[in-house]
Protein backbone atom coordinates (compact mmCIF):
# COMPACT_ATOMS: atom_id res chain seq x y z
CA UNK A 1 0.00 0.00 0.00
CA UNK A 2 1.82 3.09 -1.19
CA UNK A 3 0.28 6.37 -2.09
CA UNK A 4 1.95 9.52 -3.29
CA UNK A 5 0.58 12.98 -2.58
CA UNK A 6 1.97 16.29 -3.74
CA UNK A 7 0.76 19.35 -1.86
CA UNK A 8 1.51 22.81 -3.20
CA UNK A 9 4.77 21.61 -4.69
CA UNK A 10 6.61 24.36 -6.57
CA UNK A 11 10.10 24.89 -7.95
CA UNK A 12 12.02 28.00 -8.85
CA UNK A 13 15.39 28.01 -10.59
CA UNK A 14 16.64 31.47 -9.66
CA UNK A 15 14.06 33.87 -11.03
CA UNK A 16 12.59 31.28 -13.37
CA UNK A 17 9.56 29.38 -12.18
CA UNK A 18 9.83 25.78 -13.37
CA UNK A 19 6.78 24.56 -11.47
CA UNK A 20 3.81 26.55 -10.29
CA UNK A 21 2.38 25.30 -6.98
CA UNK A 22 0.53 22.11 -7.83
CA UNK A 23 -1.29 19.28 -6.13
CA UNK A 24 -1.60 15.66 -7.19
CA UNK A 25 -2.71 12.46 -5.54
CA UNK A 26 -1.62 9.08 -6.85
CA UNK A 27 -3.35 6.01 -5.50
CA UNK A 28 -1.75 2.73 -4.50
CA UNK A 29 -0.77 0.60 -7.49
CA UNK A 30 -1.62 3.29 -9.98
CA UNK A 31 0.46 4.06 -13.06
CA UNK A 32 0.37 7.77 -13.76
CA UNK A 33 1.96 9.39 -16.79
CA UNK A 34 3.31 12.92 -16.67
CA UNK A 35 2.82 14.08 -20.24
CA UNK A 36 3.90 17.34 -21.78
CA UNK A 37 6.26 19.00 -24.24
CA UNK A 38 9.88 19.63 -23.21
CA UNK A 39 10.09 22.47 -20.71
CA UNK A 40 6.67 21.68 -19.29
CA UNK A 41 8.16 20.77 -15.90
CA UNK A 42 7.35 17.06 -16.01
CA UNK A 43 10.94 15.93 -15.50
CA UNK A 44 11.47 18.49 -12.76
CA UNK A 45 8.40 17.16 -10.98
CA UNK A 46 9.69 13.59 -11.27
CA UNK A 47 13.11 14.63 -9.95
CA UNK A 48 11.41 16.32 -7.01
CA UNK A 49 9.57 13.08 -6.23
CA UNK A 50 12.85 11.14 -6.52
CA UNK A 51 14.74 13.61 -4.33
CA UNK A 52 17.15 14.90 -6.96
CA UNK A 53 15.65 18.38 -6.71
CA UNK A 54 14.40 20.05 -3.56
CA UNK A 55 11.04 21.71 -4.10
CA UNK A 56 10.99 25.47 -3.41
CA UNK A 57 7.82 24.87 -1.45
CA UNK A 58 5.22 22.25 -0.63
CA UNK A 59 5.10 18.68 0.58
CA UNK A 60 5.88 15.33 -1.02
CA UNK A 61 4.00 12.70 0.96
CA UNK A 62 4.72 9.00 0.49
CA UNK A 63 2.24 6.97 2.53
CA UNK A 64 1.52 10.15 4.42
CA UNK A 65 5.12 10.90 5.42
CA UNK A 66 6.67 14.08 4.05
CA UNK A 67 9.93 13.30 2.24
CA UNK A 68 10.39 16.68 0.54
CA UNK A 69 13.69 17.27 2.40
CA UNK A 70 14.87 13.65 2.39
CA UNK A 71 17.86 12.88 0.11
CA UNK A 72 17.29 10.31 -2.66
CA UNK A 73 19.28 7.56 -0.91
CA UNK A 74 16.87 7.64 2.01
CA UNK A 75 13.66 7.70 -0.05
CA UNK A 76 11.58 4.61 -0.83
CA UNK A 77 11.65 5.57 -4.51
CA UNK A 78 13.61 4.08 -7.41
CA UNK A 79 14.19 5.73 -10.75
CA UNK A 80 14.77 4.45 -14.28
CA UNK A 81 16.78 7.12 -16.09
CA UNK A 82 16.45 8.10 -19.71
CA UNK A 83 20.09 7.21 -20.42
CA UNK A 84 19.71 3.96 -18.40
CA UNK A 85 22.68 5.20 -16.28
CA UNK A 86 24.08 1.72 -15.73
CA UNK A 87 27.50 1.61 -14.10
CA UNK A 88 29.72 0.50 -16.95
CA UNK A 89 32.48 -0.82 -14.67
CA UNK A 90 30.15 -3.33 -13.02
CA UNK A 91 28.56 -6.46 -14.46
CA UNK A 92 24.81 -6.71 -14.89
CA UNK A 93 24.63 -8.59 -11.58
CA UNK A 94 26.82 -5.96 -9.96
CA UNK A 95 24.49 -3.24 -11.17
CA UNK A 96 21.33 -4.91 -9.96
CA UNK A 97 22.84 -6.08 -6.67
CA UNK A 98 24.59 -2.82 -5.75
CA UNK A 99 21.68 -1.37 -3.80
CA UNK A 100 21.27 -4.63 -1.84
CA UNK A 101 25.00 -4.70 -1.11
CA UNK A 102 24.77 -1.17 0.30
CA UNK A 103 21.96 -2.35 2.54
CA UNK A 104 24.31 -4.96 3.96
CA UNK A 105 22.42 -7.96 2.63
CA UNK A 106 24.24 -11.31 2.64
CA UNK A 107 25.80 -12.57 -0.61
CA UNK A 108 23.55 -15.63 -1.16
CA UNK A 109 20.45 -13.50 -0.57
CA UNK A 110 21.70 -10.89 -3.03
CA UNK A 111 22.37 -13.56 -5.66
CA UNK A 112 18.88 -14.98 -5.26
CA UNK A 113 17.14 -11.60 -5.43
CA UNK A 114 19.23 -10.39 -8.36
CA UNK A 115 18.48 -13.61 -10.23
CA UNK A 116 14.76 -13.22 -9.63
CA UNK A 117 14.79 -9.58 -10.76
CA UNK A 118 16.74 -10.40 -13.91
CA UNK A 119 14.37 -13.25 -14.70
CA UNK A 120 11.46 -10.88 -14.36
CA UNK A 121 12.86 -8.64 -17.12
CA UNK A 122 13.89 -11.65 -19.22
CA UNK A 123 17.64 -11.33 -18.73
CA UNK A 124 18.27 -14.32 -16.48
CA UNK A 125 21.31 -15.45 -18.48
CA UNK A 126 22.97 -12.08 -18.79
CA UNK A 127 24.20 -11.55 -15.22
CA UNK A 128 27.92 -11.78 -15.91
CA UNK A 129 27.93 -9.42 -18.89
CA UNK A 130 28.96 -5.80 -18.84
CA UNK A 131 26.52 -3.08 -19.94
CA UNK A 132 28.63 -2.40 -23.04
CA UNK A 133 27.86 -5.93 -24.21
CA UNK A 134 24.09 -5.37 -24.15
CA UNK A 135 21.70 -3.81 -26.65
CA UNK A 136 19.83 -0.61 -25.85
CA UNK A 137 16.67 -2.46 -24.88
CA UNK A 138 18.55 -4.92 -22.69
CA UNK A 139 20.30 -2.09 -20.86
CA UNK A 140 16.99 -0.46 -20.07
CA UNK A 141 15.70 -3.82 -18.80
CA UNK A 142 18.69 -4.05 -16.47
CA UNK A 143 17.94 -0.52 -15.26
CA UNK A 144 14.37 -1.62 -14.52
CA UNK A 145 15.57 -4.74 -12.68
CA UNK A 146 17.95 -2.56 -10.67
CA UNK A 147 14.94 -0.60 -9.43
CA UNK A 148 12.57 -3.53 -8.89
CA UNK A 149 15.07 -5.52 -6.82
CA UNK A 150 14.91 -2.83 -4.14
CA UNK A 151 11.12 -3.22 -3.84
CA UNK A 152 10.54 0.53 -3.84
CA UNK A 153 7.26 2.03 -2.76
CA UNK A 154 7.23 4.31 -5.77
CA UNK A 155 8.78 3.51 -9.16
CA UNK A 156 9.82 6.53 -11.22
CA UNK A 157 10.53 6.36 -14.93
CA UNK A 158 12.02 9.31 -16.81
CA UNK A 159 11.31 8.81 -20.52
CA UNK A 160 12.87 5.36 -20.21
CA UNK A 161 12.33 4.28 -23.80
CA UNK A 162 12.98 7.57 -25.60
CA UNK A 163 16.20 6.33 -27.18
CA UNK A 164 14.77 3.04 -28.46
CA UNK A 165 13.13 2.39 -31.81
CA UNK A 166 9.36 2.31 -32.10
CA UNK A 167 8.96 -1.46 -32.21
CA UNK A 168 11.14 -2.10 -29.16
CA UNK A 169 9.53 0.80 -27.33
CA UNK A 170 6.05 -0.67 -27.80
CA UNK A 171 7.18 -4.07 -26.57
CA UNK A 172 9.06 -2.81 -23.51
CA UNK A 173 6.17 -0.53 -22.62
CA UNK A 174 3.81 -3.51 -22.62
CA UNK A 175 6.23 -5.55 -20.49
CA UNK A 176 6.64 -2.74 -18.01
CA UNK A 177 2.88 -2.44 -17.76
CA UNK A 178 2.53 -6.19 -17.11
CA UNK A 179 5.23 -6.19 -14.43
CA UNK A 180 3.81 -3.07 -12.84
CA UNK A 181 0.35 -4.61 -12.64
CA UNK A 182 1.68 -7.89 -11.31
CA UNK A 183 3.67 -6.21 -8.54
CA UNK A 184 1.03 -3.56 -7.96
CA UNK A 185 3.77 -0.95 -7.67
CA UNK A 186 2.78 2.72 -7.67
CA UNK A 187 4.48 4.23 -10.72
CA UNK A 188 5.09 7.70 -12.13
CA UNK A 189 6.11 7.64 -15.77
CA UNK A 190 7.35 10.73 -17.61
CA UNK A 191 6.93 10.87 -21.35
CA UNK A 192 6.47 13.36 -24.14
CA UNK A 193 4.83 10.75 -26.32
CA UNK A 194 1.04 10.84 -26.19
CA UNK A 195 0.77 7.30 -27.62
CA UNK A 196 2.92 6.04 -24.79
CA UNK A 197 0.82 7.83 -22.20
CA UNK A 198 -2.52 6.84 -23.71
CA UNK A 199 -1.51 3.19 -23.99
CA UNK A 200 -0.13 2.45 -20.52
CA UNK A 201 -1.42 5.01 -18.04
CA UNK A 202 -4.20 4.56 -15.54
CA UNK A 203 -4.31 8.32 -15.43
CA UNK A 204 -2.52 11.01 -17.38
CA UNK A 205 -1.31 14.32 -15.97
CA UNK A 206 -0.97 16.75 -18.87
CA UNK A 207 1.54 19.50 -18.09
CA UNK A 208 2.44 22.71 -19.84
CA UNK A 209 4.72 25.55 -18.77
CA UNK A 210 5.10 24.33 -15.19
CA UNK A 211 1.36 23.85 -14.68
CA UNK A 212 -0.95 20.89 -14.59
CA UNK A 213 -3.42 21.36 -17.43
CA UNK A 214 -5.58 18.35 -16.73
CA UNK A 215 -5.59 15.08 -14.82
CA UNK A 216 -7.71 12.20 -16.07
CA UNK A 217 -7.95 8.73 -17.53
CA UNK A 218 -6.68 8.36 -21.10
CA UNK A 219 -10.29 8.28 -22.32
CA UNK A 220 -11.21 11.43 -20.40
CA UNK A 221 -8.14 13.27 -21.62
CA UNK A 222 -8.85 12.27 -25.19
CA UNK A 223 -12.58 12.85 -25.37
CA UNK A 224 -13.03 15.57 -22.75
CA UNK A 225 -10.01 17.86 -22.90
CA UNK A 226 -10.56 20.76 -20.53
CA UNK A 227 -8.20 23.25 -22.13
CA UNK A 228 -7.29 24.06 -25.75
CA UNK A 229 -3.71 22.98 -24.92
CA UNK A 230 -4.80 19.48 -23.95
CA UNK A 231 -7.12 19.33 -26.95
CA UNK A 232 -4.32 20.24 -29.31
CA UNK A 233 -1.53 18.28 -27.64
CA UNK A 234 -3.23 14.90 -27.44
CA UNK A 235 -4.14 13.42 -30.77
CA UNK A 236 -5.15 15.31 -33.90
CA UNK A 237 -7.69 18.07 -33.49
CA UNK A 238 -9.42 20.58 -35.73
CA UNK A 239 -9.27 23.91 -33.89
CA UNK A 240 -11.48 26.50 -35.51
CA UNK A 241 -11.86 30.11 -34.50
CA UNK A 242 -15.49 31.18 -34.60
CA UNK A 243 -17.77 33.99 -33.51
CA UNK A 244 -20.77 33.01 -31.42
CA UNK A 245 -24.00 34.83 -32.15
CA UNK A 246 -27.41 34.00 -30.71
CA UNK A 247 -26.39 30.58 -29.40
CA UNK A 248 -24.70 29.38 -32.57
CA UNK A 249 -21.41 29.70 -34.45
CA UNK A 250 -20.52 28.98 -38.05
CA UNK A 251 -17.15 27.95 -39.35
CA UNK A 252 -15.82 25.77 -42.15
CA UNK A 253 -19.27 25.43 -43.62
CA UNK A 254 -20.82 23.96 -40.49
CA UNK A 255 -23.24 25.55 -38.04
CA UNK A 256 -22.43 24.61 -34.45
CA UNK A 257 -24.82 24.79 -31.53
CA UNK A 258 -23.18 27.11 -28.95
CA UNK A 259 -25.42 28.03 -26.01
CA UNK A 260 -23.01 30.60 -24.58
CA UNK A 261 -22.76 34.37 -24.55
CA UNK A 262 -21.92 36.07 -27.84
CA UNK A 263 -18.26 36.59 -28.68
CA UNK A 264 -15.07 34.85 -29.87
CA UNK A 265 -14.70 31.13 -29.20
CA UNK A 266 -12.61 28.15 -30.25
CA UNK A 267 -14.33 25.05 -31.63
CA UNK A 268 -12.48 21.73 -31.39
CA UNK A 269 -13.41 18.67 -33.43
CA UNK A 270 -11.57 15.34 -33.68
CA UNK A 271 -10.82 14.31 -37.31
CA UNK A 272 -12.59 10.98 -36.75
CA UNK A 273 -15.73 12.84 -35.68
CA UNK A 274 -16.05 14.48 -39.11
CA UNK A 275 -17.94 12.64 -41.88
CA UNK A 276 -17.88 13.68 -45.50
CA UNK A 277 -21.19 13.47 -47.34
CA UNK A 278 -20.94 13.73 -51.15
CA UNK A 279 -22.39 16.97 -52.53
CA UNK A 280 -22.41 18.97 -55.73
CA UNK A 281 -19.39 20.78 -57.11
CA UNK A 282 -18.85 24.12 -55.45
CA UNK A 283 -20.91 23.13 -52.42
CA UNK A 284 -19.37 22.29 -49.00
CA UNK A 285 -15.65 21.49 -48.80
CA UNK A 286 -13.25 20.39 -51.54
CA UNK A 287 -10.92 17.46 -50.77
CA UNK A 288 -7.34 18.71 -51.23
CA UNK A 289 -5.33 15.72 -50.14
CA UNK A 290 -5.79 12.09 -49.14
CA UNK A 291 -3.08 10.22 -47.27
CA UNK A 292 -3.41 6.47 -46.86
CA UNK A 293 -2.30 5.18 -43.43
CA UNK A 294 -3.30 1.59 -44.13
CA UNK A 295 -6.26 1.12 -41.84
CA UNK A 296 -7.41 4.73 -42.12
CA UNK A 297 -7.37 7.61 -44.56
CA UNK A 298 -6.39 11.10 -43.45
CA UNK A 299 -8.07 13.73 -45.55
CA UNK A 300 -7.80 17.50 -45.82
CA UNK A 301 -10.89 19.30 -47.08
CA UNK A 302 -11.04 23.06 -47.67
CA UNK A 303 -14.30 24.83 -46.96
CA UNK A 304 -15.59 27.87 -48.86
CA UNK A 305 -14.49 30.22 -46.04
CA UNK A 306 -10.88 28.94 -46.34
CA UNK A 307 -11.01 26.77 -43.19
CA UNK A 308 -9.39 23.35 -43.63
CA UNK A 309 -10.96 20.27 -42.05
CA UNK A 310 -8.74 17.38 -41.06
CA UNK A 311 -10.83 14.25 -41.51
CA UNK A 312 -10.10 10.65 -40.66
CA UNK A 313 -12.18 7.82 -42.14
CA UNK A 314 -11.93 4.09 -42.50
CA UNK A 315 -10.04 3.07 -45.62
CA UNK A 316 -13.04 1.65 -47.48
CA UNK A 317 -15.03 4.90 -47.39
CA UNK A 318 -14.91 6.18 -50.98
CA UNK A 319 -13.42 9.69 -51.18
CA UNK A 320 -11.99 11.36 -54.27
CA UNK A 321 -9.40 14.09 -54.39
CA UNK A 322 -10.77 17.28 -55.90
CA UNK A 323 -14.40 16.34 -55.26
CA UNK A 324 -16.81 18.31 -53.03
CA UNK A 325 -18.30 16.99 -49.77
CA UNK A 326 -20.50 18.39 -47.06
CA UNK A 327 -18.73 17.96 -43.69
CA UNK A 328 -20.86 16.73 -40.79
CA UNK A 329 -19.66 16.72 -37.19
CA UNK A 330 -20.88 14.33 -34.49
CA UNK A 331 -18.99 15.73 -31.46
CA UNK A 332 -17.49 19.08 -30.68
CA UNK A 333 -16.14 21.13 -27.79
CA UNK A 334 -16.28 24.89 -27.44
CA UNK A 335 -13.49 26.68 -25.59
CA UNK A 336 -13.54 30.20 -24.31
CA UNK A 337 -10.82 31.87 -22.20
CA UNK A 338 -8.79 28.64 -22.28
CA UNK A 339 -11.57 26.55 -20.69
CA UNK A 340 -14.07 24.10 -22.18
CA UNK A 341 -17.45 25.80 -21.82
CA UNK A 342 -19.74 23.59 -23.90
CA UNK A 343 -19.58 20.07 -25.17
CA UNK A 344 -21.76 18.18 -27.61
CA UNK A 345 -21.27 14.44 -27.28
CA UNK A 346 -24.05 12.06 -28.34
CA UNK A 347 -22.31 8.97 -26.95
Amino acid at each position, binding site marked *: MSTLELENVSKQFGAVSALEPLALRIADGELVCLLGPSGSGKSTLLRIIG*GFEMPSGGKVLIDGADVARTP*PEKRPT*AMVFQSHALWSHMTVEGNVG*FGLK*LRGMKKPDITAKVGAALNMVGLGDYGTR*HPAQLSGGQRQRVAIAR*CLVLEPKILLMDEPFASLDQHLRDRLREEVRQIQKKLGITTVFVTHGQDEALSIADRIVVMSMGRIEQVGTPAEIYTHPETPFVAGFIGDMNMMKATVQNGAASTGGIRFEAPIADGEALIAVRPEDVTLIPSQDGEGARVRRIVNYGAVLKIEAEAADGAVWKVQTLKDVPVTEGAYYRPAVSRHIIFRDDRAVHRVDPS
Partner: protein
Amino acid sequence: MIFLSTRRFDFFGYGILLFLIFFIVLPVLTVFLWAFAEQWFYPAVLPTKWGFRFWSLVLARPDVWSALITSVELSLTVTALSAVICLPAAYAFARMEFPGKSMFMMSFLMANAFPRFALIISIAVLFLSLDLVGTFTGVVIIQLLNTLLLMIWLPTAAFRAVSREMEEAARDVGASAWQVFRYVTLPQAFPTIAAALLMTFVWTFYETEGAWLVGAPRIRTMPLLMMQMINNQLVVQYGAVLSVMLWVPSLAAILMARRIIGGDAFAKGLGG
Protein backbone atom coordinates in the same frame (compact mmCIF):
# COMPACT_ATOMS: atom_id res chain seq x y z
CA MET B 1 49.16 15.38 -50.35
CA ILE B 2 48.16 13.14 -53.23
CA PHE B 3 51.41 13.93 -54.95
CA LEU B 4 53.48 13.25 -51.83
CA SER B 5 51.91 9.98 -50.93
CA THR B 6 51.61 8.24 -54.27
CA ARG B 7 52.17 4.53 -54.38
CA ARG B 8 55.43 4.88 -56.31
CA PHE B 9 57.49 6.54 -53.65
CA ASP B 10 56.32 8.09 -50.40
CA PHE B 11 59.08 10.65 -49.76
CA PHE B 12 57.32 12.07 -46.78
CA GLY B 13 56.78 8.75 -45.02
CA TYR B 14 60.32 7.54 -45.65
CA GLY B 15 61.65 10.90 -44.54
CA ILE B 16 59.94 10.56 -41.17
CA LEU B 17 61.12 6.98 -40.86
CA LEU B 18 64.73 7.99 -41.54
CA PHE B 19 64.45 10.83 -39.06
CA LEU B 20 63.13 8.50 -36.37
CA ILE B 21 65.80 5.89 -37.01
CA PHE B 22 68.61 8.42 -37.05
CA PHE B 23 67.65 10.45 -34.00
CA ILE B 24 65.89 7.96 -31.77
CA VAL B 25 66.53 4.33 -32.63
CA LEU B 26 70.22 4.68 -33.37
CA PRO B 27 71.18 6.63 -30.21
CA VAL B 28 69.12 4.30 -28.03
CA LEU B 29 70.68 1.29 -29.67
CA THR B 30 74.16 2.74 -29.29
CA VAL B 31 73.65 3.42 -25.60
CA PHE B 32 72.34 -0.10 -25.15
CA LEU B 33 75.35 -1.57 -26.93
CA TRP B 34 77.76 0.58 -24.92
CA ALA B 35 76.26 -0.70 -21.69
CA PHE B 36 77.33 -4.23 -22.59
CA ALA B 37 80.60 -3.35 -24.29
CA GLU B 38 83.92 -3.79 -22.57
CA GLN B 39 85.90 -2.76 -25.61
CA TRP B 40 84.76 -0.94 -28.75
CA PHE B 41 87.38 0.47 -31.09
CA TYR B 42 86.76 2.77 -33.95
CA PRO B 43 86.20 0.90 -37.21
CA ALA B 44 84.21 -1.97 -35.65
CA VAL B 45 80.43 -1.75 -36.16
CA LEU B 46 79.75 -3.79 -33.02
CA PRO B 47 81.67 -3.83 -29.71
CA THR B 48 84.91 -5.75 -29.93
CA LYS B 49 84.48 -7.26 -26.49
CA TRP B 50 81.15 -7.92 -24.78
CA GLY B 51 80.58 -8.30 -21.05
CA PHE B 52 79.03 -7.19 -17.81
CA ARG B 53 82.18 -5.73 -16.28
CA PHE B 54 80.83 -2.18 -16.16
CA TRP B 55 77.57 -3.39 -14.73
CA SER B 56 79.34 -4.93 -11.76
CA LEU B 57 81.49 -1.81 -11.44
CA VAL B 58 78.45 0.46 -11.44
CA LEU B 59 76.39 -1.76 -9.19
CA ALA B 60 79.26 -2.03 -6.73
CA ARG B 61 79.23 1.70 -6.13
CA PRO B 62 77.31 2.69 -3.00
CA ASP B 63 76.38 6.11 -4.48
CA VAL B 64 74.44 4.40 -7.30
CA TRP B 65 72.36 2.44 -4.83
CA SER B 66 71.74 5.41 -2.58
CA ALA B 67 70.75 7.53 -5.62
CA LEU B 68 68.40 4.81 -6.81
CA ILE B 69 66.81 4.57 -3.38
CA THR B 70 66.56 8.37 -3.17
CA SER B 71 64.92 8.54 -6.59
CA VAL B 72 62.39 5.81 -5.83
CA GLU B 73 61.60 7.30 -2.41
CA LEU B 74 61.27 10.75 -3.89
CA SER B 75 59.01 9.63 -6.75
CA LEU B 76 56.80 7.56 -4.46
CA THR B 77 56.48 10.38 -1.91
CA VAL B 78 55.72 13.00 -4.54
CA THR B 79 53.18 10.78 -6.31
CA ALA B 80 51.43 9.88 -3.07
CA LEU B 81 51.35 13.47 -1.77
CA SER B 82 50.27 14.78 -5.14
CA ALA B 83 47.39 12.30 -5.17
CA VAL B 84 46.32 13.24 -1.65
CA ILE B 85 46.39 16.96 -2.45
CA CYS B 86 45.30 17.04 -6.08
CA LEU B 87 42.60 14.38 -6.37
CA PRO B 88 40.19 16.02 -3.89
CA ALA B 89 40.98 19.37 -5.51
CA ALA B 90 40.30 17.91 -8.96
CA TYR B 91 36.99 16.54 -7.74
CA ALA B 92 36.07 19.94 -6.35
CA PHE B 93 36.99 21.61 -9.63
CA ALA B 94 34.92 19.10 -11.56
CA ARG B 95 31.81 18.93 -9.41
CA MET B 96 31.51 21.99 -7.19
CA GLU B 97 30.93 25.65 -7.77
CA PHE B 98 33.03 28.17 -5.87
CA PRO B 99 34.23 31.71 -6.53
CA GLY B 100 37.48 32.00 -8.45
CA LYS B 101 37.24 28.48 -9.84
CA SER B 102 38.28 29.27 -13.39
CA MET B 103 41.01 31.60 -12.12
CA PHE B 104 42.48 28.75 -10.06
CA MET B 105 42.38 26.41 -13.04
CA MET B 106 44.12 29.00 -15.21
CA SER B 107 46.75 29.69 -12.59
CA PHE B 108 48.04 26.12 -12.89
CA LEU B 109 48.49 26.71 -16.59
CA MET B 110 50.13 30.10 -16.05
CA ALA B 111 52.78 28.59 -13.80
CA ASN B 112 53.81 26.50 -16.76
CA ALA B 113 53.76 29.39 -19.19
CA PHE B 114 56.91 30.92 -17.68
CA PRO B 115 60.39 29.48 -18.22
CA ARG B 116 60.59 26.77 -15.61
CA PHE B 117 64.27 27.24 -14.90
CA ALA B 118 63.79 30.86 -13.86
CA LEU B 119 60.81 29.89 -11.72
CA ILE B 120 62.80 27.17 -9.99
CA ILE B 121 65.70 29.52 -9.29
CA SER B 122 63.45 32.03 -7.60
CA ILE B 123 61.88 29.23 -5.57
CA ALA B 124 65.36 27.95 -4.67
CA VAL B 125 66.24 31.41 -3.35
CA LEU B 126 63.11 31.37 -1.27
CA PHE B 127 63.94 27.88 0.00
CA LEU B 128 67.41 29.10 1.01
CA SER B 129 65.86 31.41 3.58
CA LEU B 130 63.57 28.61 4.73
CA ASP B 131 66.47 26.16 5.17
CA LEU B 132 64.88 23.81 2.66
CA VAL B 133 67.78 23.71 0.20
CA GLY B 134 69.60 20.41 0.21
CA THR B 135 66.77 18.65 2.04
CA PHE B 136 64.51 15.83 0.94
CA THR B 137 61.50 17.96 1.92
CA GLY B 138 62.67 20.80 -0.31
CA VAL B 139 62.99 18.53 -3.34
CA VAL B 140 59.60 16.96 -2.61
CA ILE B 141 57.99 20.40 -2.54
CA ILE B 142 59.58 21.57 -5.79
CA GLN B 143 58.57 18.33 -7.52
CA LEU B 144 55.04 18.62 -6.16
CA LEU B 145 54.75 22.05 -7.76
CA ASN B 146 55.81 20.46 -11.04
CA THR B 147 53.10 17.82 -10.89
CA LEU B 148 50.21 20.11 -9.94
CA LEU B 149 49.17 20.86 -13.50
CA LEU B 150 49.14 17.23 -14.58
CA MET B 151 47.51 15.94 -11.42
CA ILE B 152 44.75 18.52 -11.36
CA TRP B 153 43.86 18.99 -15.01
CA LEU B 154 43.76 15.34 -16.02
CA PRO B 155 41.71 14.05 -13.06
CA THR B 156 39.40 17.09 -13.28
CA ALA B 157 38.63 16.18 -16.87
CA ALA B 158 38.17 12.54 -15.81
CA PHE B 159 35.75 13.39 -12.98
CA ARG B 160 33.87 15.77 -15.24
CA ALA B 161 33.39 13.02 -17.80
CA VAL B 162 31.55 10.79 -15.31
CA SER B 163 27.86 10.95 -16.16
CA ARG B 164 25.69 12.72 -13.59
CA GLU B 165 22.89 10.26 -14.13
CA MET B 166 25.24 7.42 -13.15
CA GLU B 167 25.97 9.20 -9.88
CA GLU B 168 22.30 9.98 -9.33
CA ALA B 169 21.40 6.35 -10.01
CA ALA B 170 23.79 5.36 -7.24
CA ARG B 171 22.22 7.85 -4.82
CA ASP B 172 18.86 6.44 -5.85
CA VAL B 173 19.70 2.88 -4.80
CA GLY B 174 20.91 4.10 -1.43
CA ALA B 175 24.53 5.22 -1.75
CA SER B 176 25.72 8.11 0.41
CA ALA B 177 27.76 10.88 -1.18
CA TRP B 178 30.97 9.10 -0.14
CA GLN B 179 29.76 5.73 -1.44
CA VAL B 180 28.84 7.30 -4.77
CA PHE B 181 32.40 8.59 -5.04
CA ARG B 182 33.95 5.33 -3.87
CA TYR B 183 31.90 2.92 -5.99
CA VAL B 184 30.95 4.95 -9.07
CA THR B 185 32.84 8.20 -9.66
CA LEU B 186 36.32 6.96 -8.76
CA PRO B 187 36.13 3.66 -10.69
CA GLN B 188 34.75 5.51 -13.70
CA ALA B 189 37.55 8.07 -13.61
CA PHE B 190 40.22 5.52 -12.62
CA PRO B 191 41.90 4.80 -15.99
CA THR B 192 42.69 8.49 -16.50
CA ILE B 193 43.75 8.97 -12.88
CA ALA B 194 46.05 5.96 -13.10
CA ALA B 195 47.65 7.46 -16.19
CA ALA B 196 48.16 10.76 -14.36
CA LEU B 197 49.73 8.94 -11.37
CA LEU B 198 52.09 6.97 -13.59
CA MET B 199 53.11 10.09 -15.48
CA THR B 200 53.72 11.90 -12.20
CA PHE B 201 55.92 9.06 -10.97
CA VAL B 202 57.97 8.90 -14.17
CA TRP B 203 58.18 12.67 -14.51
CA THR B 204 59.49 13.03 -10.95
CA PHE B 205 61.93 10.17 -11.45
CA TYR B 206 63.56 11.86 -14.44
CA GLU B 207 63.31 15.49 -13.38
CA THR B 208 66.72 17.16 -13.08
CA GLU B 209 66.43 20.96 -12.90
CA GLY B 210 64.49 21.22 -9.67
CA ALA B 211 66.27 18.30 -8.06
CA TRP B 212 69.63 19.83 -8.89
CA LEU B 213 68.92 23.45 -7.92
CA VAL B 214 67.16 22.61 -4.68
CA GLY B 215 68.60 19.21 -3.75
CA ALA B 216 72.28 19.37 -4.68
CA PRO B 217 74.66 18.44 -3.31
CA ARG B 218 73.13 16.43 -0.48
CA ILE B 219 70.13 14.98 -2.27
CA ARG B 220 71.30 13.09 -5.33
CA THR B 221 68.82 11.39 -7.64
CA MET B 222 69.66 8.91 -10.38
CA PRO B 223 69.57 11.38 -13.27
CA LEU B 224 71.77 13.78 -11.28
CA LEU B 225 74.24 11.02 -10.54
CA MET B 226 74.34 10.11 -14.20
CA MET B 227 75.07 13.69 -15.21
CA GLN B 228 77.80 13.84 -12.62
CA MET B 229 79.42 10.61 -13.76
CA ILE B 230 79.37 11.64 -17.39
CA ASN B 231 80.89 15.00 -16.50
CA ASN B 232 83.62 13.71 -14.21
CA GLN B 233 84.96 10.61 -15.88
CA LEU B 234 84.87 10.05 -19.55
CA VAL B 235 84.15 6.37 -19.39
CA VAL B 236 81.18 6.07 -21.71
CA GLN B 237 80.09 2.76 -20.23
CA TYR B 238 79.22 4.25 -16.82
CA GLY B 239 76.72 6.60 -18.40
CA ALA B 240 75.40 3.87 -20.66
CA VAL B 241 74.81 1.41 -17.83
CA LEU B 242 73.04 4.10 -15.81
CA SER B 243 70.92 5.03 -18.81
CA VAL B 244 69.77 1.46 -19.27
CA MET B 245 69.01 1.30 -15.53
CA LEU B 246 67.05 4.52 -15.82
CA TRP B 247 64.86 3.02 -18.50
CA VAL B 248 63.58 0.39 -16.14
CA PRO B 249 61.01 2.57 -14.29
CA SER B 250 59.58 4.13 -17.44
CA LEU B 251 59.41 0.73 -19.10
CA ALA B 252 57.63 -0.66 -16.05
CA ALA B 253 55.29 2.35 -16.04
CA ILE B 254 54.40 1.88 -19.69
CA LEU B 255 53.74 -1.83 -19.21
CA MET B 256 51.58 -1.08 -16.18
CA ALA B 257 49.75 1.62 -18.08
CA ARG B 258 48.96 -0.81 -20.87
CA ARG B 259 47.56 -3.25 -18.33
CA ILE B 260 45.58 -0.77 -16.28
CA ILE B 261 44.49 1.81 -18.78
CA GLY B 262 44.36 -0.23 -21.95
CA GLY B 263 43.02 -3.62 -20.96
CA ASP B 264 40.80 -2.59 -18.13
CA ALA B 265 39.26 0.37 -19.84
CA PHE B 266 38.04 -1.85 -22.66
CA ALA B 267 36.68 -4.46 -20.28
CA LYS B 268 34.83 -1.75 -18.41
CA GLY B 269 33.24 -0.78 -21.65
CA LEU B 270 34.18 2.78 -22.37
CA GLY B 271 31.50 2.59 -25.04
CA GLY B 272 28.99 2.12 -22.20
